[in-house]
């Protein structure tokens, strides 16, 4: 057998599942392709139902990179004007005291004019796109003490670069939360790294294309490889990341086509779309079929439009991992 458990999909759910199973000493392979909803999200985690172990896992995964250093519930805002509260903060998250917003010319992530209009308490500035030293110089010219800037640094350089920029500019900096931007990517990266560190074999850029009893076909570029497993975990996400597909009038799990709630409409108007999103595979107690498990937003009722966000899918995966472990 190539692995004890094969996890399909490396979003928040798949990573959490892989981490926990690897920690339990299992041989886990995680196959993932494309951008997960996790990386597209604003990366705001809000604790909805307490779980101390999961809390600890998230903090540990982010600590190295300066993420989730503090636990406190705050509201952050985006350039789209949405408000979203979160339970974990990095040192650069809480922007409630900021009075200035600096956008960077050519960087479409964050529009300070828009932020100023939404909040009514920020003075907008535009600065030139430049390297770190020059950016610090430009920020120095802004009189306000605390400034919101767009996300600029990737996870590996996040903490150190923000610190450097603060020191050089003499300003306190806060980072704007924008969807389709870095925060979600950072969260995703730190979860992938956590799974890797726990011993999971992460096969990125690869897709599971077919499943037969006890083995899966994995597409890697122009090649296909077979991988045998003891148990399979479906964590492919919802419609947006291809974990579920819509064809004709059905919502279907694309690999096994199992237990998917039917959507009785050929045309997807918004009501139907909501219904489609709220369906998913019905994995009662996380077991979908013999040796097949599911976790995360692929599971019926776990999707975002139903108010189930990152914490919920991770909690779902955390608990499901225990069941998978016990079953093997």
């Amino acid at each position, binding site marked *: 057998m190539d692995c004890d458990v094969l996890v399909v999909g490396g979003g928040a759910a798949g990573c959490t599942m892989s981490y926990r199973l690897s920690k339990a000493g299992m041989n886990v392979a995680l196959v993932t392709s494309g951008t997960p909803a996790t990386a597209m999200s604003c990366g705001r985690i809000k604790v909805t139902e307490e779980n101390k172990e999961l809390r600890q896992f998230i903090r540990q995964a982010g600590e190295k990179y300066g993420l989730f250093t503090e636990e406190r519930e705050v509201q952050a805002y985006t350039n789209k004007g949405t408000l979203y509260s979160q339970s974990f903060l990095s040192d650069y998250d809480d922007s409630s005291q900021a009075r200035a917003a600096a956008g960077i010319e050519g960087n479409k992530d964050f529009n300070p004019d828009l932020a100023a209009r939404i909040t009514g308490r920020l003075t907008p500035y535009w600065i030139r796109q430049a390297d770190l030293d020059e950016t610090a110089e430009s920020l120095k010219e802004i009189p306000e003490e605390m400034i919101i800037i767009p996300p600029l640094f990737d996870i590996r350089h996040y903490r150190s670069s923000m610190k450097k920029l603060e020191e050089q500019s003499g300003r306190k900096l806060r980072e704007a939360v924008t969807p*389709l931007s870095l925060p979600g990517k950072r969260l995703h990266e730190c979860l992938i790294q956590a799974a890797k560190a726990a011993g999971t074999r992460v096969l990125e*850029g690869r897709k599971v294309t077919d499943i037969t009893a006890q083995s899966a076909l994995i597409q890697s570029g*122009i090649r296909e490889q077979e991988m045998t497993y003891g148990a399979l975990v479906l964590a492919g996400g919802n419609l947006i990341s291809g974990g579920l597909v819509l064809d004709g009038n059905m919502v279907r799990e694309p690999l096994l086509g199992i237990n998917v709630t039917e959507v009785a409409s050929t045309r997807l108007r918004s009501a139907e779309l909501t219904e489609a999103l709220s369906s998913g595979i019905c994995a009662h107690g996380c077991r979908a079929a013999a040796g097949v498990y599911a976790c995360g937003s692929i599971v019926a009722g776990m999707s975002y439009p139903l108010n189930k966000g990152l914490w919920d899918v991770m909690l779902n995966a955390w608990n499901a991992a225990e069941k998978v472990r016990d079953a093997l």
Partner: protein
Amino acid sequence: MNGCIKCGECLTACHAYRHLRDQFSGPRRLAVEYPRFNDTSEEAFICTTCGYCEEVCPSELAITQAIVQMRGKMFPPQNEGQKKVLELAYRTDHSVEPKEYSAPEKGKTLLFPGCVGKGRLAGRPEEVIKLLTAAGAEPYIHPGLVCCGSPLSKMGAAEEVERLKNINYPLLSEAEKVVTVCPGCTTMINKSYGIAALHILEYLQDAELNFIDGDDVRVYLHHPCHLSRGVGPHVMDIAKEILDSMPGVTVLDCGSEKDCCGGGGGVLAAYPREAYATADLKVKEAQEAGADLIVAPCPFCAVNLRRPKRLKAVEMSEFLCSRLK
């Protein structure tokens, strides 16, 4: 481009958009500007067909294929660099001026040397032959082989590609095994010719190579787009495994390895300045991370990464060859 959910992931991933100018060849261009205004501006040619956009696209759209198709419709290209490459192909059947080399003309495993190799710029035939021999193969190069057509297909030159394919096809199909050095050739021969060809690293996966106790060297392992996303990410696992097994070699983990070198897809020919700028950024990162050497398992990338002259950049089979026992 039906099925695009306008999430913008492709834009975020595109190095051409990020580094060069506010230009993007991807979906928006394909779906809006091109059909509506029949706009034949440069954007379509700044794309290196690196495939990053395709990898991140949650809708799995075949973006690069669409870009190449669009180039076909705009054929012939207007820029001087690509015109020159085309002329060279008409004249010499190669995309790089071929030079003399010595290699056995008969054997069991056909080495498809590729234009960059034959031009002796990187992945030189003699060294690759030596490496394959050390791996237990009986390698040969058929002297009649020409360009596989991959670089020309990226410029939209469909007819010329067909002509070259017809020359290569019989020579490739009679071989017991086909091995290539350039990932562009690997993909082209597998997908377009329908002939099974291995990239040299895939061939070396199970080979027992003996390396010398060479000098300590810190290697930045570049992930060539057409290898790691084209042929498949599994090849990069093999590359890492082989390098890890070599005494004295430490492979760094910098985070920027997967970034495009900026030279592929005809960009090095069409926009040498832009290709240089992208390579320079990458080499700088390697330098800052403390690398002594860049190893690129693609002759084409090796050539482009060498241009900034900041760090030595070698093609991977040449590097392996230099440390054979």
